[in-house]
Structures are given as C-alpha cells and as structure tokens.
C-alpha cells in the first residue's frame, strides 16, 4: 500500500485529515446537509404561501371554517380536533423512532425491531389521515357561487342559538330549486371525439337564484373580512343582485381550478404543501420499511453499529418538524 498511497505522516495533525472536528460521521453530516436544504425548500413554499396570503389578506379563507370534519362524527363542526390528532400521531411516531435509535445504541435488536415497526405504523396512519383530509376538502361542504371576477359567494341565514345570533351556513343542495336545463355534459360519443369536458357543476346559477328568491331569510356572504375577522354578510337586496348579476358558476368542493371556501390560491397551496409533505412522509415510511427489514435480517448487527437507524431517524424527525410548521401556518394562524 505504501507504494500507491502517499503517506505524509501528518494524518494525526489538525490539517492532515486525521481528525473529525465535528465528531460526526460522514453519513450523518450528509443527512444534516440534506435536511438543511430541504428545510429551505419547505420554507420557500411556506413563505410563498405567506406572500399570497398577504396579497389577499382581507379575504383569505378562515381555516377553522374549512377544516371542521372528524371521521365518524358526521355533521358536527369540530375544527382543529382531527388535525391535532394527526399532529399527535406524527410526534408519537417520532418518539418511537428516537426510542429505536436509543435501543440501537445499546445494540438491542429486538427493541429496535419493535420500535421501527411502531414508527412505520404511525407513519401509515398519518398518510391515511391526510388522504381522508384531502378527500373531505375536495368533496366540499356547503357549496358556493363563483362570480365572473373569481370571488366566492356563500349562503347562510341568521339563527339564534342559546340567545346568541349566529350566521349558519346553508348548503346549495338545500337551496337549489331544480329547473329544466338544456345543458348536458359533452361526451366524446355524442360530439367532437377529440374534446372532452369535465363533470358539470351540480346546479346552475339560475337554480340557486330561484332558491334564494324563494327562501327569504337566506343571505349571501362574500369573502371580505371585517375588523373582527368575520366574513361580510350582505343585505337581502344586495344578496339577490350579487347572485343575479355576477354569479357565473356553482362550485362544490375544491380543486386546483375552483375552491368553494374562498380564493383558489388557498386550495392550490393546501394541495401543494401538504402534498409535498405527505410525499416526504410516504418516502420516509418506505425508507423505514427498508431499514426495518435490514434490522430483522441482522445487517446492522453484523456491521456492529445501528447508525443507519439514526440517519433515517434524522430524516423522520425532520418530517415531523416540517409538519409542526405546516400545522401552524395552515390551521392555526
């Protein structure tokens, strides 16, 4: 070896490359390098969300009115509960991960296996919960009418609950009065074969307008926030004229083009940021599964070190860390 490797005799000196000033292995440092760059990516997304929100600061949707559903508790408005559960699941799976790392330091194969398994289960529950959250968001709640200018008009009426007057939302299903309509969805088989059309909205604006005329206590709410942070409710006359003159499209649910909860940007950022985070969780689960099988096969036992579990653990905690911020900026602030 002496003939191929130049030996300077300074390996043990500070500048000879013989010491590790950060006392961390190459693999761990590269994982930290990746985490810092990924953190910058996520903060870029969240800051872009902040940009768009500041741009439409006086009409941004109120998260508590958007994410109100909890599985099995149909029809109840329970903001925050479900997403708090998701947060807890992710923190909990972070805890089992760090316990696996700790067991790895003690070279305890059985414990590492159990804790890795629990971490994978936690991650799978989180991804499943997020799928449900997406499905609920896409399916929508009460429906709304979009104006030509892209603004969202929602419906509701004042009701008195326990002596307090509240604005209770009315869904477009309850409002609309069916009318004969000549408009049918274009399909390939009965028209131009090379064009397709997406599903038509459930109701036409005229049907909603007829329902609004018939229900005299129903009012229209636009997206502008008043000084108390509530959406502005229009008077009866204004409600009728807004729908009649400006209403263009009936919207139910949210996708990348329309969003019944408010500005479309809100839905776009929701899908993009929680989707990108969910993709991180999914890849984390897959990597965890690979490591889990390596643990079972005894790869790290033979290697004499469970450092790989620690490196994957860093990634997994980072995913948890990002979620803490997504939770704050999408659901709390």
């Amino acid at each position, binding site marked *: 070896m002496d003939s191929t490797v130049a030996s300077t005799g300074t390996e043990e000196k500070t500048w000879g490359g013989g010491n590790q000033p950060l006392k961390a292995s190459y693999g761990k440092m590269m994982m930290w390098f990746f985490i810092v760059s990924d953190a910058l990516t996520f903060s870029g997304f969240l800051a872009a969300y902040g940009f768009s929100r500041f741009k439409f*600061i006086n009409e941004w949707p109120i998260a508590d009115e958007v994410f109100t559903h909890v599985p099995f508790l149909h029809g109840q408005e329970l903001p925050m509960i479900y997403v708090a559960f998701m947060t807890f699941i992710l923190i909990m799976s972070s805890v089992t991960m760090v316990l696996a790392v700790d067991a790895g330091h003690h070279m305890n194969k059985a414990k590492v296996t159990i804790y890795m398994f629990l971490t994978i289960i936690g991650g799978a529950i989180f991804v499943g919960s997020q799928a449900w959250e997406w499905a609920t968001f896409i399916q929508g709640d009460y429906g709304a009418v979009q104006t030509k200018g*892209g603004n969202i008009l929602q419906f509701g009426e004042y009701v008195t609950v326990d002596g307090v007057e509240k604005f209770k939302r009315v869904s477009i299903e309850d409002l609309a009065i069916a009318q004969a309509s000549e408009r049918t969805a274009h399909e390939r088989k009965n028209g131009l074969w090379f064009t397709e059309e997406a599903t038509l909205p459930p109701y036409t604006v005229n049907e909603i307008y007829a329902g609004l005329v018939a229900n005299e206590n129903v009012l229209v709410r636009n997206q502008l926030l008043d000084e108390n942070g509530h959406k502005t409710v229009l008077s009866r006359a204004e409600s009728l004229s807004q729908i009649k003159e400006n209403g263009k499209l009936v919207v139910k649910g949210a996708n990348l083009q329309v969003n019944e909860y408010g500005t479309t940007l809100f839905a776009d950022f929701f899908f993009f940021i929680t989707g990108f985070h969910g993709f991180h969780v999914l890849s984390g689960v897959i990597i965890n599964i690979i490591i889990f099988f390596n643990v079972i096969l005894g790869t790290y036992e033979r290697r004499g070190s469970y450092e790989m579990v620690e490196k994957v653990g860093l990634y997994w905690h980072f995913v948890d860390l990002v979620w803490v*911020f997504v939770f704050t900026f999408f659901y709390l602030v």
Partner: protein
Amino acid sequence: MAHEHKLEIFRGLVKFKSNTSKIWGVLIFLTIVTAVEVVLGIYKPDMFMHTWMDPFEGGFFATIGNIILSPIVYMKPLNFIFIALTIVKAYYITWDFMHMRDETGSMRKMVVWTSVFLICYLIFILLQEGGYVFSVYNGADALIKKDF
C-alpha cells in the same frame, strides 16, 4: 458503542435519569404545547385577537421601528403566540429527538445559524412584497377590479 447523552432540559431545571425517560419527558412537553395551541385555536380568546400596539406614524425612524417591532405592531397576539410555541416545539424536536444537544457546538451552529438566517431573509422579502402587492390591489387609485 456507548453514546453520551445530555439529560437536562429547560437549562438544567429538569434532569432525567436515562435517555429513554428524557424522550418520554419531551413527548409530554410537546403534547402539552400542542394542546395549548389547539385550545387557543378553538376558543380564540378576545384579548388575543387585536394588536396591543398601533404602528408608529411619521418618517423614516417610525418605519424602522415598525419593521423591528413588526411581530407586535402588525400581528395579532394570538398568531404571535402560535408562532412562538411552534418555534419552541421545533427546538425540542431538533435538540432532543434529532440529538442536536449531543452534537458539537460548531455542528449545531452550522445547521441552525445557516437555516435561520436564510429563512428569515426569505420570509422578510416575500411577506414585504406580499404586503406591497396588497396595497397596489387595494389602494385608493387601484386600477384593478375584482368584484364583477
């Protein structure tokens, strides 16, 4: 392979006997913080819903003062509390779950100072510009019309 762990959190106020019990202790702390956030988010106490201070009026120094004090001047106290609690949670996840507490000081600074500086810079620029675009859209002489 024996690893040494620092077992104190809250600057030595709480000291755990083993690394495992420290992990559970941090979990309890994070759960409490999340629970506080959720309760505040559901009930939204009135006292936190309005800013406690108005922006300074005047010239250059008023603007500088507003920028420095922007979390208090422009942000609702409730949102300020949420962001502060989020950073507290991020600190404990990084320090105890990611073992940043056990790394060398220079390693900690390389990761934390770099990202904190770049993220603050990014946030400042984007939020400042977002506010400017809002003022262009909603000023008295705005040429854009959205309500039609």
